[in-house]
């Protein structure tokens, strides 16, 4: 059994003074494993990732990284410990060029040679990054921005990745690229916590699935089993199971 990498343990978290969004969430992701979180809109999936990456301090509960309690550490510290997070929605630096955006992904990487190598790799994966290298990221189309974002996240070589709907707004080709990359990460021993609304597709490739609803993990188990459950399908996954 592989080493335990990221654990959210009985986390309660919320925004401001409002009622908590997460009400005792427990999730574990191991190295070389993709765990997929699915659930209705507003269930708290993004919130869970924010707690894991240190953007939001939990009200109670713990976050463990490689067995170490990292609850309440800042994102920079967690980044130093090898944890990266790609936000939901559009989070490019709009008034900076694509180049600056991608380079900023490696803000903490001091090794220029390594950085440049990764930039070349990323340009290969997403041609638009190379083509629009000098233009402002905010001027790209929705999907193009998403690609830049993912490219930015690839600048680091983290051991744990949190991905919040990485395929949203991407065309089929780019979606495929993203899923391929996730697969590649898994194979290189990275732990991936994936939130996807493209749920059938995601569950298809994930090892483990968790259905999050009302702030708790409601059902978890091997991803394929979840996808096959017709009740879950009706409630969370929509349509008929993909063939």
């Amino acid at each position, binding site marked *: 059994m592989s080493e335990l990498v990221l654990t959210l343990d009985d986390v309660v978290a919320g925004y401001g003074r409002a*009622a908590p969004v997460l009400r005792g969430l427990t999730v574990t992701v191991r190295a070389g494993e993709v765990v997929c979180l699915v659930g209705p809109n507003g269930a708290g999936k993004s919130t869970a990732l924010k707690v894991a990456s240190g953007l939001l301090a939990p009200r109670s509960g713990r976050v463990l990284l490689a067995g170490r309690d990292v609850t309440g550490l800042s994102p920079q510290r967690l980044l130093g410990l090898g944890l990266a997070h790609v936000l939901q929605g559009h989070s490019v630096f709009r008034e900076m060029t694509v180049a600056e955006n991608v380079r900023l992904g490696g803000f903490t990487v001091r090794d220029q040679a390594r950085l440049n190598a990764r930039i070349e790799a990323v340009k290969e994966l997403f041609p638009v990054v190379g083509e629009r290298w000098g233009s402002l990221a905010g001027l790209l189309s929705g999907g193009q921005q998403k690609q830049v974002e993912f490219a930015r996240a690839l600048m680091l070589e983290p051991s744990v990745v949190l991905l919040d709907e990485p395929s949203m707004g991407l065309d089929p080709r780019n979606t495929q690229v993203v899923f391929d990359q996730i697969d590649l990460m898994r194979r290189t021993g990275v732990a991936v916590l994936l939130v996807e609304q493209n749920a059938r597709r995601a569950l298809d490739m994930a090892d483990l699935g968790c259905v999050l*609803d*009302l702030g*708790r993990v409601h059902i978890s188990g091997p991803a394929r089993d979840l996808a096959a459950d*017709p*009740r879950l399908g009706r*409630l969370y996954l929509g349509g008929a199971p993909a063939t």
Partner: protein
Amino acid sequence: MRIASRGLPLLVAALAIAYPWLVPNYYLVYAGALTVMYAAMSTSWNLLGGFTGYVSLGHSAFFGLGAYGTGLLVVRLGVPWVVALLVSAVLVTVFAVGVGIAAVRVRGASFVIVSIALVSMMNLVVQGWRSLTGGSTGLQVPSPFPGLHRGETHMVFFYLFLALLAVALLCWWHVSRSRFGAGLRAIREDEDKAESLGVPTGAYKVAAFALSALFVALAGGLYAVWFGSLDPIFVFSILIGSYMVLMSLLGGVRHLYGPLLGALIVAPAGEYFLIALGETQIHLTATGLVLVLVVLFMPDGILARLTRRRPGPSIPDETADQRLQKVTP
């Protein structure tokens, strides 16, 4: 609760009407009239700022133009003061439409800057156009009621400003519950979205701008005939404009009575600081600090603090299990 919210405004209105008869001397009538003037102006400022979120620090431009317009019509053309007041208010409104068309093209911070520029510009024009306005020597407007002694004049103007305040409040209230008002609020939230839903944002903004300029111009015109001396530097002062903003913000820009409440607090407080700390300029510091504190701790104003916060959306209480049960075939 309901009685309180209905009864309170009536009580306040009654008190306001009785005020000049309750106070022991004319100075307090004068101070009251000044406060009511500020209340009327910040209420009309709020017609623009509160709905559309366009913060104008330069509304004193319309105050000054209303004042000079009225004054010049009375002095240079010998028009009766009421006519002068109305004509100048209409002219200022027309002018505001023109300025508005240019000014509302920019959003947020640029608009603030443009509004500041407007005051400075009007100050330069009025100061420089000596042959018409008297320039820096100012303009002296004869009293409209030569028969009344000074105290009685204050009484008259107290009621005139009170009437203006009432009209401004009524206008705000009416707009706030109209489609037009909803469109203005939509502009504050998301202009492009509003536009795509069919709100002619440009026209709405200019209309709100002009409407709010109209009342401020009326206040300026009344001020001119009441006060009698106009000096460009002081009627076109950024401070007067900022007072309108401060009062509105302090009271709460989303409430009908917000600016009024703000005026009732700021005007006497300013007086207090000046008297208590007036020996040095430290009273400016006091005012500045109050402003800082308001912005930091009451960005939505006193009334927003007092009225209870909106309840969040109801979170469904059923558990996921129950939901699962429901879909079980």
